Every structure is written in C-alpha cells, then in structure tokens.
C-alpha cells in the first residue's frame, strides 16, 4: 500500500501541464483529485515516473451557462456539481449522479475531468456524460478540440485523450424538463456500481450503462426500443450486446439480469 518512488511537479496552468506532459511523455500522469490514480499507485498497479499536479489550476473550476449548453471546467469537483442550482435545472441527471459518487470526502476532492479521463467503466460520471450526449474539450500543443462523448471512451481505462493533452472543459446540452433516471446498484453506499443505468428521454432517448463492458457504453438496443415507444419494455434487451466483467460481487449472468432490472427502473423513473 506504499507507492513506488516518483517525481512530483506542480502545474499552475493548463499550458504548464501540457508542457510537462510533452517533456515527460508516457512517464507522466496528471494528478487531479487523485481518487482513481492514488489507489492504483498504492497497489503499484500504476507506477508513473512523474506526477504533474493540476489540482491547483483554479481557473478550470467553473459551471457556466453557454447558451444551448453548460460549460463545466475540468477541475470542477463532484461536490460543486451536486450543489449547483444551474446544474439542477439544466442538467439534472449529471447533478444527481454527482451526488452518488463515493462518499462526501471523495466528492470534495474528485473532479469531473479526472473521473472522465480515467475512463473507468464502473464509474458513475462517464455514464452521465454519455446519457446527456455531452462532449469533452481537450487542449494540447496544437490547440483545442472537442470530442463527442460517444467517441471519448475507447477501451478499458482508455480515452481519446492523447498523452500530451489536458481536458479543460466538459459541455452538457441543456436538458431542462427532459425525463431522466439513474439507478445504481451496489452493496455499500460508497462503492462503485456493480451495475448502473443512466436514462435520458426526450427526442433522442439515450441510455448508458455502468460496468457492463470494458468501457462506459451506450446501449443502442434499448435506445431503439425507447425511440419506438417501447417504454419500460425496452429494458428487456439491456443485457444483450454487453460484455460485463465477472468478480466476487457478480457474474456475467447476474449483471445482465441487473442491467435489465435497472434500465427498466431507470425508464420508469424518467417517465414518472
């Protein structure tokens, strides 16, 4: 439970972080809230040579009204998300999901950008991003680019972010009045979801699953059922086309069953 030796440096701006990443290459990792990276380092599953601490970049912590969307700074904490009135009105799913992450101590340090960059299929916030149909703004040596949520998660703990890029902003289309639901199933309140389901209704219904594959995923089959007016019955295919992990809490058969139950409940919650 003691990490291997590493160098540590503080970046006081996104540009400074990009410069550090450019200098150290794959040997460097960004440290935001640290709630995903530090445990991996303590188990020595991650042994970065250089930690670039971006937690002091205060100008990346904001929730702004961007007209048709909300613009959220990458270093915004879960706590800021779950207490934001703007978010409660315009992105109620993300607002709620932020309150379901870990425990209060985790939520005070963990950041939205850090959670998304980790790309953990068992995390809550990636599913919220997917169900909202949001996007991620990344900045690198050659400037900024915006990546759609559906293009962002590329594999197990892998994202579309390049090694010399920093997430600066997350954009969430405004969704006031759209029906939504989030169902998280776990054995202890502070744990990762064994399975989770995020549902957004509206013109283009979106359903995202937690911990049902190697990366955060949307479920096209359920979405098609919903678009076709299937209501809660659309949940019956939620286990199809998934490749859930197996662990002490759940085997694949049980996870697929839970996905059907939770998506069904999520649709019912969103329709209520």
């Amino acid at each position, binding site marked *: 439970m*003691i990490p291997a*030796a590493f160098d540590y440096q503080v970046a006081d701006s996104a540009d400074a972080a990009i410069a550090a990443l450019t200098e150290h290459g794959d040997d460097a990792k960004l440290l935001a809230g640290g709630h995903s990276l530090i445990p991996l380092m303590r188990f020595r599953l991650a042994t970065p040579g250089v930690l670039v601490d971006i937690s002091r970049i205060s100008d990346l912590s904001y929730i702004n009204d961007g007209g048709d969307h909300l613009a959220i700074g990458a270093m915004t904490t879960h706590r800021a998300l779950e207490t934001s009135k703007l978010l409660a009105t315009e992105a109620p799913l993300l607002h709620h999901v932020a309150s379901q992450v870990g425990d209060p101590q985790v939520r005070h340090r963990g950041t939205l950008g850090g959670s998304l960059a980790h790309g953990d299929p068992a995390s809550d916030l990636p599913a919220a991003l997917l169900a909202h149909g949001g996007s991620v703004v990344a900045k690198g040596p050659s400037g900024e680019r915006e990546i759609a949520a559906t293009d962002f998660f590329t594999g197990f703990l892998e994202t579309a972010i390049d090694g010399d890029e920093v997430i600066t902003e997350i954009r969430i289309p405004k969704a006031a009045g759209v029906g939504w639901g989030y169902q998280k*199933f776990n*054995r*202890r*309140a502070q*744990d990762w979801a064994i399975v989770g389901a995020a549902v957004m209704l509206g013109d283009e219904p979106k359903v995202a699953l937690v911990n049902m594959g190697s990366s955060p995923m949307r479920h096209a089959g359920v979405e098609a059922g919903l678009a076709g007016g299937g209501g809660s019955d659309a949940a019956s295919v939620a286990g199809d086309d998934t490749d859930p992990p197996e662990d002490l*809490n759940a085997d694949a058969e*049980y996870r697929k069953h839970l996905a059907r*139950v939770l998506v069904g409940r999520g649709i019912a919650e969103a329709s209520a």
Partner: protein
Amino acid sequence: MTAVGTPMKRREDPQLLVGEGKYVDDIQVVGQLWMGMVRSTMAHARITSIDTSAAEGADGVHSVLTGSQLQEMGLWIAPLPCAWPVTEDMVNPPHYPTAIDEVHHVGEIVAVVLADSRYGAVDAAEQVIVDYEPLDAVASIGLARDGSATAHSEHETNKAFHWPLVPDPDALDAAFANAAQTVKANFVQQRLIPAAMEPRGVLAVPSPMGGDVTLYSATQVPHILKVMIAATTGIAESKIRVVAPAVGGGFGAKLNVNPDEILAVTLANKLGRAVRWTESRTEAAFSTHQGRGQLQTIELAADADGKLQGVRVHVDADMGAYMMLITPGVPLLGSFLYTGVYDVPAFGFTCDGYFTNLTPTDAYRGAGRPEASYAIERAMDILAAQVGIGPDEVRRRNYLGGGDYFENLEVPSTLVFDSGHYGPNLDRALELANYEGLKTEQVRRREAGDSKQLGIGMVTYVEICGLAPSRALGGLNYGAGGWEHATVRLLPTGKAEVVSGSTPHGQGHETTWSQIAADKLGIQPEDITVLHSDTAISPLGLDTYGSRSLAVGGVAIAAACDKVVEKAKQIAAHQMEASADDLEFAEGVFSVSGSPDQAMPIQAIAFGAFTAHDLPDGMEPNLQEQVTFDPPNFVFPFGTHVCTVEIDEDTGEVELLSYVAVDDCGNQINPMIVEGQLHGGIVQGVAQALWEEACYDEDGNLANPSMMDYLVPSAAEVPSMVTDYTVTPSTSNSLGVKGAGEAGTISSAAAVMNAVVDALSPYGVVDMDMPATPQRVWRTIHEAKNGGAS
C-alpha cells in the same frame, strides 16, 4: 451521588476525536530502522533460493536477512507460542517468525529488510527475488479434510486434534433413538478479516545500557506478550517492558504473539537500534490472523411438540497454516454454548482441527461463541418450521427454567449458568419489534405477490464471558489463568490512582473504572486517574478479551477500593476516638452513628495516612491496596434480538429494515458504553451475515485483500437500532455485572439469516450460506422460481 449507572461521556474521546491519540505509528525514535517484510506469494512451496543482492544495494538499506540467516543468528530459543494445546497429542508444527525452507501460506515472512525509512524498506523488499518450487496447496477446510494433499509436507494428515465433549454418550444416543422430530443442518462459518480501524504496528527500543528493551505494540495483551516474548527469546522478563499506547480496536486480532513483535524485539536488541514496522491494510489481510473458518453439523432431537431431547454437534475447524496463541481453543470456547438458552437433557460436541495453507485463524470477536449461537439458533428455526410452530414458541417451550428466573443452574455441557430470566426478555423484544404487526404485514405482502418481501428473524442468545476462573481454564489445558489485578491509591491530596491490569483497546476502561472507584471511595470520577497498558506501571495483568474486563478487572478494582475504605475507616475511628463499628461511610465522609457532628472526609484521612503523624499502632502509612481477583465462575449474559429484512426479489438485495436488541448484561456501570458495545457488536455480526468473507482461490490466494473488495459495512448500510435491557444481576461477582463486548456479534448473524430465510421460506428455502449477497439471494429465488417450486 452515584456515578455507577450514569451514561457519562467517555473521558478517552476528546483526544481521539481531535486526532491527538498517540498510536504506535505516532511514536518516533531517532535512529530507528524500518522493517520491510518479504512475504511469500505462494500458499505452499519450497524455497529454492533467495537473491537479496539488489535489495542490499538499494538506498538507505541497512541489511537484508533471510529466514535461514535469522534462524542462524540464534535470536530466539523457541517457536512462536501456542498457549492452548487442547489435547496431549495435538499436532503443532514449529512456527518461527520467518519461514526457513518451506512456506505454508501466502503472506508468511521469508526475509526481512532493514532500512532507514518505511518507503525504503518496502521498495527494497520488492527487489528481493525468491524462487519457489510449488507444492500442492490445501486451500480450504474441505480440502484439508479430504487429505489428498497436506498443508505441511512432513505431515501425513492435516488433522491437528480431535476434541470431544460428550458427557453421557448413552443418553445422547437414546435421545436421538426416541425422538419424534430430528433436525440435521450443516452451516459454514466463513473466514473473516478482523479489520480493526488501526492496523497493527510495533516499535522496539533498546535502552543504551543494560540490555533492556521496550516494545510499543498495537496489542490487546501487553502483559501476556511480555511473558511470551521472554519465553520465546530467552530475554529475562525483567528486561522487557511492553507498552500498548492508544490502540484503535482489536476484536481479538491484537491478542497474539506475532512474528513482527519477536523480530522487532530481537533485532533491536541485536543491533542496538530501534526497529519498527507498521502493517499496511493489505499486509494485514494476509498476515494478521483471521476469524471463524468452521464447518458445522448440528443435529437436534425433539419430541412431537418441539421440546428438545438432545443436541449433537460436530465442528471441523480451520486452524490455517499454524497454531497461533489460542487458535485451537477457539472452537472449544463455543463448545459449551451449542445448547444455547435451552433445557436440553443430552448433549454431545466433537471438534476436529485441520491445517490449511491459509492465514492462521484465532480469536475474533466472540471467538467460537458466535459460531455456536449461530448453529443452535438457526437450527431452532428449522425445528420450529418442522413442528409447525412459530420461532418464538419453539424458544419459549425450551427455555432453561421454563423462561422463569433461575440462578446457579447446571446445564448439560457441565457449566453452571450464573443467572437467567429469558421469558420476559423475549416478551420485551417482541413488543418493541411490534412482532404481531410485522407478521401481519408479511402476510399482506405475500398475498399481494409484492416484489419486496419481509423476513423476520429472532435469536435468544446466551454467552459465556468474564474469562475466567483460572481452575476452569486449567481444566481446558489453557496455558494461563483468568484472574485480574488492581491497585488503588488514595493520594495525599485526596485524589486517587487506579492501576488496572486490564488493557483497553477502545472500550473506555478509564471512564468505567473511574465510575466504580468514585462510588466506592466517595470522591468525584474526575479526581480519579486510571493507569494501564504499560507493564512498567501496571506489572500484573491479563488484559482485555473475552468480555472479561468489567466482570473480572472491574470487580478487582471494586474490591481494592473496599480495602482502601476499610483501612481509612480504621484511621478515622482512631482519630475520632470512636469504635470502627460505630462509623458510617457515605458520600466520602466517615461519621459516628448518632453523633453527626463527629465526621471526617476521606480526603482528610488520605492526608493523614500520608503524614502518618497519628495512625493506629502498627499501621503502615499511606492508603494503597491491591487485589488480584480470580472469579469463582464465568458470567452468562443473554438477550433477544429481532431483525426485520426486506428482500428485493428483482435484485436479490437484502435491506435491514429494523433491528431490535433487548440485552441483559446484569448491572450496568455506564449504559452509554454498553449501548456502544452493542451497536458495534451487532454490526460486526450483521457484517458476517451480509457482507464479509475472506475469499480464496484454489491456489490459496486471497482474492479480496483490500477495503475496496472486503466489504466492511458503514453506517449507511445499517438501520438505527432499537436497544433496551432487562437486568438480571450475575451471581458470580460482587457487582452483579456480566459482559457486553461480544454479545452483539454472538447474536446478530443468526438473527439476520433467520430473517433472510424467513423471507424466502415461501420458495421452500430452508437455509442459505453467509454472506447472503444479492447475487446469492437472487440466484436462490431465480432457481426456486424456475425449478418449479411453489
């Protein structure tokens, strides 16, 4: 003025709550060396080579010592002790602080790095390369019993001992031969990881001259540890001081003599430098002993009305790789309780101990008694269903004494229960739980086919604690006594010091002891200092485990206070020129009967005893008395717990809706501390029922060694408990007190599982293994539905 019976806030808490408690890891010594343990990654293997060269060259490394090098240094004269050889022929393979040529469980130490920082020691330990030749691993108690491989390659069998307690075999056979109803059930007591809030740690500090060594250890048992270090290392007891500073919980896991403790003491002595180590959470999961690990078979014989005629039990107990301090005795502690609170004419218990290639087991909160209580209380529910009566009725029909008050009653397991009064205790629990209302709601949901079904579980437990009469322990081959020591000093200024051999690790002894002494001495609790946990300050003691502190150590303090008051009375009589027989003592003042003007406060007598200007002829100065109390009998607390669960049939989730506990621990000194003990104990048993299990793969690797995977529940998972008490004083001691530290754990796992099985009974479910995980519950329902069950 009475302090006893008052829910005083714990005097220990302010410093703990603001982070000023001094734990072992907080103590820093100049020149200290950190140990980094190289631990076996194999459950069973022969060590073929160890390459320490890279580690030896690492920054800050002092030295790297392999097991065979340490053995050759002659640091110890005996293996780590097992103080409880339960039979004459018990197999006890030598257990040295480090493995020498064969490893027997994952986590066993194979080499030790000494370095000038903790990080440096851990980094260097990672660079030690150990080559192994794998041997077949005995990765479960079931495999140990089968015996196709042996956990120790020099053994021909895994069996360590066979221990029988069958007082009357003919009567037992007859009971089963004539029974109208029989029940036979098998239960699994899964292995549990104790997970105290503070991990274990040690710091051994040699003194510069004279060869003395002080060991600071996160231990429950500094006194026992001191004796055992002397016996293991050959260092004279007079040269060893053991200090347990603030200790953050133990639950039995800090009641041992561990490899790290012996290594720290001997290496510190050898090197003349302080040597220390603090375990990581994952290291603790592999190396600090675990709890439970039993396969139980219980059989009940009853008449047609469900009245018990006989109970027959067999336990196969998983020792793990080695015998630790009391490993083999743990199932024996439970053996006497398999008849529970019931009047059973015939009883028999047998136990076989087996070695496995897993972390050793030993005492864990309740130590053998939760297992026993679980077996009889689960089996009683099965009997009730079979006879067609309610779980409350089957218990009522079988209570000792018919549910009425009794005292000093001999039960078939040969013990004498001090006192009991079970009927009213059950009544109160059922009333508080609204049992009739719950049953009505349960029927409503069943008839409506609700997807959320109710289950109601109850348990009436008894436990054996206040360990213990020394002779009784001797009869069980236990290697120590069960007495406790107290010294009470009334100081010249009228304030008091209480020195206790009972060593707290979170229980609040200082508060409780001050309440007892305050009432006895007639002074304020805040004027009493309680000293403990340091063998230099409190040389005599047998420490804290088995819910013994109050019923043995607390009673010793009361008796020492009585002696102080008696001496003070002699002085008061002398100075007031009255007969001691005419003196009354109340609220700290001696007065002459019938002459209220003639009075002396005890504080004045304390000063007089100090100056010694005017004492009775031949009386020694000062007010200091000591008592070593060896209890004449154990104490037997009891209670009824009623648990209600809601099972979500779609997900298999078990939610605890309510938990009602009506306990009887005799007289209470501090009701708030009693309640705290019960809350924690209950959650620990609930955790076994619903969350916790040390899971091993077929190679003997622990699959869940971190707090992410080993699910210790938090406050969010448990309901607010409803607690109440009946009071049936013990006849075993002058205070009428019993014990409360383990009671919750002894009752709650069975209460929860009785409720879970009750909820699933419409599906024909009669039992389920712990923990009742959502997946296990869902699959049980799913298979029952698809298997054509009603």
